[in-house]
């Protein structure tokens, strides 16, 4: 069976925070080169192990931030942004029929630490919208990628299984999406504890 490699940094077994950040940076650099939005190379990625991922969160975000990673100040702000989307904006981003995954990405799309202000602003909290091919975009990367497929399986799992991913239904209003996102963040908090 093929094992995805998370790009050339990859090898089986535990990954260090640096390897995780490199894998994210390498993958996003590859996607940035595919400028027409046609993303390929799903074979090159695999989910991080949850413990490894938590290690990266602790390594790349400041201690004070990690302790208050998903505090109401951050979560409420982003969920309010979602709730205020008008129907067209909502449909454009939260595409009905796609999945949405609430997760933390502890580094920038270049695989580099977020600067202090970005951390204070919670720019690590991402809402990935995932199409049927597992191609995702998120609030901090409209660039198409397989970043979702690199998330730990526990985070990729559905809300009902304690995961952080949910279906976006055609009938969902912006408030419905925000409600599900809040539940997903609740699970995310448990996963990252």
């Amino acid at each position, binding site marked *: 069976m093929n094992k995805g490699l998370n790009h050339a940094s990859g090898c089986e077994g535990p990954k260090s925070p640096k390897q995780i950040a490199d894998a994210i940076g*390498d993958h996003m650099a*590859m996607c940035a080169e595919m400028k027409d939005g046609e993303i390929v190379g799903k074979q090159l990625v695999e989910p991080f192990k949850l413990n490894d991922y938590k290690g990266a969160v602790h390594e790349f975000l400041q201690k004070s931030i990690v302790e208050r990673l998903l505090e109401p100040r951050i979560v409420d702000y982003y969920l309010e942004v979602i709730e205020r989307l008008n129907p067209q*904006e909502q449909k454009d981003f939260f595409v009905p029929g796609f999945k949405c995954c609430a997760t933390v990405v502890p580094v920038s799309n270049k695989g580099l630490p977020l600067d202090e202000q970005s951390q204070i602003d919670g720019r690590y909290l991402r809402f990935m919208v995932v199409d049927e091919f597992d191609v995702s975009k998120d609030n901090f990367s409209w660039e198409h990628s397989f970043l979702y497929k690199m998330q730990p399986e526990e985070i990729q799992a559905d809300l009902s299984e304690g995961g952080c991913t949910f279906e976006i239904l055609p009938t969902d209003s912006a408030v419905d999406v925000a409600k599900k996102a809040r539940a997903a963040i609740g699970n995310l908090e448990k996963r990252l504890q």
Partner: protein
Amino acid sequence: MEPREDQQKDTEERMPPMTGTDLELPTLDRPTNKRPAGSDKPDADINENVTNVAEKVSDVLEEQTVQRNSLSPEQREELRLQVLAGQAELEDVILRYNSGELDMITPRDRLALIAYLTSHLKHYHAEDLPDLLLQLIPFADERSKAMIFGALWENQYLRRRIMYKFFLVDGGLDPHDENFHSTLLSDIQGLDILPLLAQRGVYKPKGEQLLSFEKTLLEHKRYGYEMLTMLIDQKVLPLLDEVRWDYEWYKQLYDDARFFRDFLRDPDTTHEQLVEVSHSILNEDHDMNAPLTMALLRLQERDVDSFLYLIENYDQLSADEIQNIVEGIFFESVDDDDQKVRAYVTDTLGAGGFGRVYRCKYLVSEDLSLRSGAAKLPHVKGYFFDQERENAEVVRSWNSEHLNTALAITQDFIVFESADNVKSLRRAPNELPIRDTLRSLIGMIDGVAEYQERKYVHGDLKGENVILMKLEDGWYTQVIDNNPLAVNDGLYRTSENNQEILKNWAFTPDFSTNAEQDAYIAADAEERFYGIDNISLYRMYKLDMRELFEQNLTPEQFSVIDNAFTWFAQGENLYREGAVLELQEKLQSVYESLPTS
């Protein structure tokens, strides 16, 4: 926003979502030939994952079949003849074949059935049709296989999602077929199938095919390099000597990118070291053993523009931007004066039917000074992009500080004004003091007035199309998405049956004129066109801003603003010249009465 024609095309080409049975490409195994003896159902030829899909589909079909009457022998024969004539109903054929009622047993009949099904592939997006073809492909002759390949290739959705399965079936498509192979290499979605097949042992290229495969992979930069690395590491393919130099070149590039990433992770020492090393390189007294020196020298050798741009501007670039430069992620094109424009793009600011907008740092010709902007790249070049370039030229010629203006217009992308901190007027009111929001509204009116003064229409005014940019001396407001339509170029057209008046511009229904208003304006567009953008402005106030002002201003202040808009919305004002500036004056009086902090 109502789609423009180019956007409509984009939408039409998007395939509907499929549910349920997506297959994970990497987990597919090469099927073994385990068709039970005497079985007429060839689906055992298909690997288990594919079979699972077929079984699920069959389950559904069987359920439906139960509800249908069985066919009499005469009806079966009639259906067979209809298939041979290409006149049968597709759903019926799939149902009856799966229920065993469609007797297509002879080679000639099977080929006819394959041809019949293939002819329906192009417009068919459900999975039961390709699944049935997967069952039948072992019976296909070369010509039929070529037809199937062609039909799968033509449909982007099938190419991306279904095609690989046809190579994994025993007796299915052969990736070594010269025509198939060269076609697969011609497009990255096709190319992406071959590594999967190679890992499954289905694709074992040799000689020229192997060389062209490896060469084509490396044409796709990091994707190709990493895919080739994976195949080499897994001992699926050897690295050919003919591509070794290219491969090593990429390896060095990506190793250097990693090195810089490590280096940039310690921002405290980054700039200091860059100063030192850059100077030593420029003074030619550098230490050839220092890794940073060597990485910079290699960057200089690979791409002298990036090297010079970096050492000239590193102290004003963020870590992400430096990383971007050393990774060589940029667009490059020429403007109408044949000057080279290179845009190092970082974050995607937005995407839509038009294309994508990226935050960028860019350089023009040999000038290495740091310039910031937003690079707008179309999905496809052609009529619509040409029109956008023309529009950008028009707006640039107006030289207005209230309209977002093109800084560089190239043959492949346009760089617009931008800043590190940009908010839309739709979002900003929740984050900025109310005084700033009011000032932005007033600034936006300046932009609208620029249009009206020149007898042009913006047509799609809304909060999302007004940005606030934070520059050194404060927030600036600009109208974006400027596609000016001249009043004397014709604002309206009539529908084919002459029943409706249609707008000639892109618009957002909630913020735009209704049919009655359009009819009124069209009757004397030269005098009444002001109403188009004025109505959008009024709607924006009502929908997005009125409540905010009511909540954050004193009743007296709010009443001045609300009365001003009520006055503005009167028919005698809404469609006339100058009303927008009178509205602005009324708002200005409230703005000036608000405290500055």
